[in-house]
């Protein structure tokens, strides 16, 4: 079976600036595919090209086998899109929003009524459907936006940071909805910069400065630390420690996480000792050095640093 989404060297330039620099990947049908990246990494730009809102400067995006740039109308009926900005009509009621989006997708008759009931049920808005959208709490609005984006039963759904600015409990419920959709065969392409949400995704793409930094399942991605250990270091002056350890050849990677440092070493025990000694020598004796299970954030930082190092190397040449 063909992939639901196929990106081939997809590129977007704004003038001289390369927002998306040649992304190639496939998303299988029924998959929850996470698109992770920092602010400005190019997530929204990529999604907008896949929805036909932006024309690629190079490469191609195929959705359900159709080249979006060549035939945007051909895919519109089969895709759902929830933009990063909240984009329902705040001066209309929840129900009026549902009816409008059902209407522009051509729903009518019993089907329209059935989908309307489904949306009200799914968002938990029963009894609230006549409230103005602007008066609804954030979590509800977000669910309503999702419902409006999938009223027409699209086969592929693009969600651009659907949970930004929503409380953790609502986020959890939101992901449960996404899970349900995927279970029913819908392909979900979702961007986020909450790394904890990546755990909900079947597969992930990490993008950095418009380029694919890593691609794979969560467990697969964490494999980059196979044969290494990640140490968490707590010390009085983390910033100084960062300088000290960055200069040490045996510390493969050093990064600050809040008030702590994460250091990647080859051997946990030997590395811990080296960290102790190096920091003690600068009067920055660590309170604790412990081996931890690497998180996705470690993976992410690893890839970003690698990408930066490559770029720097390329620039030197």
């Amino acid at each position, binding site marked *: 079976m063909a992939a639901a989404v196929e990106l081939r060297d997809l590129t977007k330039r704004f003038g001289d600036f390369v927002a998306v620099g040649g992304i190639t990947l496939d998303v299988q049908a029924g998959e929850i595919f996470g698109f992770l990246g920092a602010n400005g990494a190019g997530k929204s730009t990529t999604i907008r090209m896949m929805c036909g*809102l932006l024309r690629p400067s190079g490469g191609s995006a195929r959705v359900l086998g159709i080249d979006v740039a060549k035939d945007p109308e051909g895919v519109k009926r089969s895709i759902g899109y929830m933009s990063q900005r909240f*984009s329902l*009509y705040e001066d209309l009621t929840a129900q*009026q929003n549902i009816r409008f989006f059902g209407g*522009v997708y051509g729903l009518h008759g019993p089907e329209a009524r059935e989908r309307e009931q489904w949306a009200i049920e799914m968002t938990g808005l029963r009894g609230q459907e006549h409230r103005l959208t602007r008066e609804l709490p954030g979590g509800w609005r977000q669910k309503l936006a999702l419902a409006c984006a999938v009223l027409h039963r699209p086969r592929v759904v693009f969600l651009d940071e659907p949970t930004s600015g929503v409380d953790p409990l609502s986020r959890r419920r939101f992901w449960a909805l996404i899970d349900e959709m995927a279970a029913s065969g819908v392909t979900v392409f979702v961007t986020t910069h909450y790394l904890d949400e990546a755990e909900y995704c079947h597969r992930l793409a990490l993008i950095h400065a418009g380029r694919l930094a890593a691609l794979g399942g969560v467990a697969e991605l964490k494999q980059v630390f196979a044969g290494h250990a990640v140490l968490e270091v707590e010390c009085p002056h983390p910033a100084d420690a960062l300088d000290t350890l960055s200069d040490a050849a045996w510390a493969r990677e050093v990064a600050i996480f809040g008030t702590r440092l994460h250091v990647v070493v080859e051997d946990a025990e030997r590395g811990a000792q080296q960290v102790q000694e190096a920091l003690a020598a600068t009067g920055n004796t660590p309170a604790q050095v412990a081996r931890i299970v690497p998180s996705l954030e470690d993976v992410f930082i690893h890839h970003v640093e690698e990408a930066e190092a490559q770029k720097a190397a390329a620039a030197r040449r």
Partner: protein
Amino acid sequence: MRKTWAVARKELRQIARDPLSLVMLIGLPAFMLVLYGFALNFDVRHVALAVQDLDGSRASRDLLGAFVNSTYFDVTAVADAGDDLERITRMRSAKAVLVIPRGYGEDLAAGRNGDVQLLLDGTDATTAQTILGYAGSIAAEANSRLLHRALARTGTPAPDMTAYEPRVFYNPELRSTQFLVPGLIGFLLMLTAVLSTAMSVVREKERGTMEQIRVSPVRTAELILGKATPYLVISLLATAIIILAARVLFGVVVRGSYLDLFVATVLYLLGALGFGLLISTIADTQALAFQIGLLTSLLPAMLLSGFIFPIRTMPAVLRAITNLVPARHFLVVLRGIILKGAGLEPYLEQLVLLAVFAILTLGLASLRMSRREA
């Protein structure tokens, strides 16, 4: 069609949700009619007139009669020879003094023009101007009549006296409100049609809902139709209200057919709506859309359409520019229908221009809207 209706219904709900905009769209036109109707009313009647008849001939009495019969003037004082005329106006016992010099009757009898003198209180320049106009035409008319009579008596063939014979046809009383209503309709429709469509589309761009619509299978034509139809209907409603208010308040009657009026108005509105949509493809913020709308359509509809300033008296360059202002052509048609009771046939040129404008703006707007990315 269904999608168009979905868009139109949503638009109507949003308009209804915002009472202020609804009042703006429907109430403002009527309010402005009242405002302009009373404030811009240049009519002057029953002007207090003092008379100093130094001639005392039959001709001078005839002239006086013409002044009084016009109902524009009431003779409130009669000054004798040697009276201080300035005092009369200074005391405000009369706004104008008509001086008929000795020999007026003889001049006319001899086939010469009879000169008279009018002293005016110029404190209120507009009124003074109007009085001067009335007096000028009354005197000229009386003069030429009397002159004709004198010449006929002597058997001399009458020279061509049509040179100066001002006569106002379709608005014989020069009632400004009569003249104002068509201009007001043209102007107000620009206000509601151009601004409200432009703003409603740009608002969607600002709030991000446009992007959501653009990923849906709604076609550009359906979107445009759905957006424009509610404003078309509202603008027509506003027109009906203006016409009704003009009739009730100022006794302005539509002499021509309402169907013609409707056809011309719809044609004009299509262009205005298209222009509003075109603005919305250029402006990214409501503030910018408002300014562009103001500069490119509202001001011209007010200043260059013949609504307030007569086009005839404009410098040639401006006069040429007015040809690009659709309100100008619409006004010609409207005045024809409302004041003259004319049909559409005499105004084919104007109607074609309006149609061209509508096709151009709507076509350009839909082209730009469907081509756009982001």
